[in-house]
């Protein structure tokens, strides 16, 4: 079974599904939804088989496939997945069906074609899988850029207020980053002897100056994508304007491409430059944690608020990556998964609230828990997961990041810890203002607010809640997959974990 071309099939399958869905008649939207949902379940099933087939103690890269594409430039369709890519692929496969289910009625509120909305979601899934599965730098770049197109139309055509502005801003920011990366990709190709294969490129010796420039080219693209402070301003706009399902994918998966790219490309390909730039990257990450958390506290728009919390979380991931310890690195990758689940859930729940109220403003709610207790409960749970309460999955990853960082860089770890306090503030205050307290009389007049979670919505949130709790108590299946890949990455960067100093412990106990 391990010879089965998992990655290429996984990449192509959603695209085929998208074509099928797009050509379904506009007059039968339900059929389009069912086909899209069924298709994404098929992809999920295949991903589960792949997960089971993956050998934890096997090679770093598995499921490798390679077909020639443009021999003149040394470009191949090379797919391969390490543990990091594998968990991200799994996250995509889990999130997409749930998002499709959650967006069941989203497209109907706009005047656009319903089948096209679901086709775009599937195209997006294809590009997202491709970007994580690619092991050829050129192929990675192709998916990285093409990914913008479906997202652009999802935001621009089906979004809320200011969707045009948000869509263009999203596209331009990402394209600017992408073009910097293009220059770096071409540069890497030239210094790497006209080769795009990741494995071959990771063995190339690059002069210090060139290495730093190339690192910067890649890093800027990923920092915009992730996004890190100060490249983050597009995310609140895009997240605020996108339909809730698309926003969940945007923040849950798309942005992880940035942090994944840093781990897969910036660190192993340019190890010396990565070390040289690490203090700067850490500084950006820490500023992001505090700054975005402060902004989140002040937000009155639910979706923008969740977007800002994500920027703060990306700061944690950045700290974890650039701390260069196995613990912090594993924590960062785990954070990528857990954040996808927790923020995905948060976005979807917020979307359900907004769909009922017809407004995304916190001040338009108040006491909603009295009308929709179940929904309010799920929102509260999602909020707690987002602030990394012990027992939920994000806690494990945040804790790993912080202790992994503390062993090598105490000030950063201490400042980052402050972010947790702020997280509690923005989450709890948001929950309090929307669902607790006295009932906003305006809410009782809205029919939608009288309907608690429907069966469809319960099916959407249940798996996410289950996963968050499960991974909160037993993260081992995921960490086992991530750990070898992180260790290999740290070896690429030539860093070993500091040995635990027994002396201090003894002295302290004396």
């Amino acid at each position: 079974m391990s010879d089965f071309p998992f990655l290429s099939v996984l990449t192509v399958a959603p695209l085929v599904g998208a074509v099928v869905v797009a050509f379904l008649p506009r007059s039968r939207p339900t059929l389009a939804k069912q086909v899209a949902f069924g298709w994404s379940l098929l992809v999920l099933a295949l991903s589960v088989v792949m997960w089971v087939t993956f050998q934890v103690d096997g090679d770093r890269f598995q499921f490798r496939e390679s077909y020639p594409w443009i021999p003149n430039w040394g470009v191949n369709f090379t797919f391969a997945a390490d543990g990091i890519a594998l968990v991200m692929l799994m996250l995509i496969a889990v999130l997409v069906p749930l998002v499709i289910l959650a967006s069941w009625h989203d497209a109907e509120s706009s005047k656009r074609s319903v089948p096209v909305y679901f086709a775009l979601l599937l195209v997006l899934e294809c590009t997202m899988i491709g970007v994580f599965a690619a092991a050829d730098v050129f192929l990675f770049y192709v998916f990285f850029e093409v990914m913008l197109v479906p997202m652009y139309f999802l935001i621009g055509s089906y979004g809320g207020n200011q969707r045009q502005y948000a869509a263009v801003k999203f596209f331009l920011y990402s394209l600017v980053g992408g073009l910097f990366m293009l220059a770096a990709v071409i540069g890497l190709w030239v210094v790497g002897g006209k080769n795009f294969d990741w494995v071959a490129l990771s063995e190339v010796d690059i002069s210090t100056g060139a290495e730093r420039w190339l690192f910067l080219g890649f890093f800027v693209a990923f920092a915009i994508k992730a996004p890190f402070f100060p490249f983050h301003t597009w995310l609140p706009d895009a997240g605020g304007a996108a339909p809730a399902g698309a926003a969940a994918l945007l923040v849950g998966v798309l942005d992880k491409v940035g942090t994944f790219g840093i781990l897969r490309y910036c660190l192993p390909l340019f190890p010396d430059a990565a070390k040289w730039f690490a203090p700067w990257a850490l500084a950006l990450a820490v500023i992001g944690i505090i700054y975005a958390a402060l902004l989140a506290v002040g937000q009155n728009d639910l979706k923008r608020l969740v977007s800002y919390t994500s920027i703060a979380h990306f700061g944690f991931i950045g700290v974890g990556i650039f701390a260069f310890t196995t613990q912090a690195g594993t924590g960062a990758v785990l954070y990528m998964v857990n954040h996808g689940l927790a923020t995905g859930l948060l976005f979807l729940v917020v979307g359900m609230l907004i769909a009922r109220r017809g407004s995304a403003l916190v001040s338009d709610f108040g006491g909603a828990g009295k009308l929709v207790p179940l929904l309010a409960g799920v929102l509260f749970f999602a909020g707690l997961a987002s602030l990394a309460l012990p027992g939920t999955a994000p806690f494990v990853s945040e804790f790993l990041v912080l202790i992994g960082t503390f062993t090598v860089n105490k000030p950063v770890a201490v400042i980052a810890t402050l972010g947790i306090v702020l997280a509690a503030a923005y989450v709890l205050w948001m929950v309090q203002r929307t669902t607790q307290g006295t009932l906003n009389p305006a809410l009782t007049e809205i029919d939608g607010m009288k309907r608690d979670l429907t069966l469809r919505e319960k099916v959407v949130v249940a798996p996410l809640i289950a996963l968050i709790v499960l991974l909160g108590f037993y993260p081992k299946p995921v960490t086992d997959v991530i750990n070898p890949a992180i260790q290999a990455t740290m070896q690429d960067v030539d860093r070993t974990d500091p040995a635990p100093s027994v002396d201090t412990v003894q002295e302290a106990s004396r």
Partner: protein
Amino acid sequence: MTELELPPIDYAAIAPILIMLGAAVLGVLVEAFVPRRLRHPVQLPLALLAVLAALTMVVVNADKRVITIGVVAVDGPTLFLQGAILALSAVALLLLGERAVERGGAFVAQAAVTADSPEDRRQAENAGGAGEVYPLSTFAIGGMLIFVSANDLLTMFIALEVFSLPLYLLCALARRRRLLSQEAAMKYFLLGAYASAFFLFGLALIYGFTAGLGDRAAGVDFATVNAAVANSTASPVLLFAGVALVAIGLLFKAAAAPFHVWTPDVYQGAPTPLTGFMAACTKVAAFGALLRVFHVAFEGARWDFTPVLGAVAVLTMLVGALFAVTQTDIKRLLAYSSIANAGYLLVGVLSPGSGGLSGTMFYLVAYGFTVLAAFAVVTLVRDADGEATHLSRWAGLGRRSPVYAAVFTFVLLAFAGIPMTSGFTSKFAVFGPALEGGQVWLVIAGVLTSMVLAFPYLRVVVLMWLSEPGDSTPTVAVPGGLTSAALVIGVLATLVLGVAPEPLLSLASSAADFVR
């Protein structure tokens, strides 16, 4: 009186040129002797057949590497570029010959009738377009074929005139907005005449420079010029001034800044099918000549001209990108985009070695097909007064005619260089060799201007899809078979060259070697 000895002529090698010029002469005879209503049905197939026959001859010649009559070099780049010009012309001819979109086609019946007079309005309503369009464009194509194969500055100059003069005339033949069209033709003609004069003067200076060669006679064939650059005892001022003036003449045709000022006016005023023809084929011809002049004749002076041409390239990219942002007319926007693309092409011209050469040739083909598809869509978006080119009129087009809006979106994404389109692969094809050749700052300028350029393209996409259609949103005309064919070919080429560029890349790199 001594007997003149004819040089040996390789007729097969120059057959494509002979076929095109012969067809043009035949076309003139058709105009003279065939009844009016039969002219269009005869002329268009004649022109298309000639192009296909010439293309066949190019394919037959594929392995030829000769210099015949001393002035025409038939080698890899020549054949590749001739093939490109012919293939693009075939598509452009489909657009030029379209008569279903607008009654009588995009060209005026009698250009001499005063614009906006009652008679003019009558002919705008009823009369079929002028048949002269076909021989004129076949002459132009023939001239371009000579232009890219000229191995001698004088031949190059003659070819320049042969393909420019018909274009000046064709510019003036728009059926609608005739004053704009005539103004465009006038501007193009006057500025083109200046450019020709510069070229001619440069040629004279180069001739003087080659007189400094001790062991061989002065001349302007590229072998002599090349030898003179290395060994001439004449003042290098002659060389530098000559190179500069010749370059000005060529850069004018290539629409590079600061010699680009005609481009937006002419692109806007000329009949749209012709604009497409110029944007695709003239660009190939101009850059073909630039490649040959700088890679063969002035190769030895590379270190001297590279900084200057590099500055021109950066300026061209900047001007094209920055001015594109402010445009409100789709044809002017595409004109500035074509200027910026000239800048990217210059990056390719400046890359030493065969990588830059093949990359530039690949870029020319890819861009040509995409730009033809773009202008094909422009011919279709119309209202009662003809084409609706003002951008505000395109608002909500995606709702009215999703298919054409989708096609145009794809074309714009290609211009923006999104992967899976030829726009991306062709950028890679020129930037890769440039970086390899150490032209880092040119690549950085290219990348930065690409970012700026993405904005105007995206604005059009936003207009088409995300804006609500207004009352003034024109409908898209149902295209005739010819425009449909051109559109399909253009879009397919854009897609195929983006997804599977390998065959053309291989062809370009195997062709990237000049005979000297």
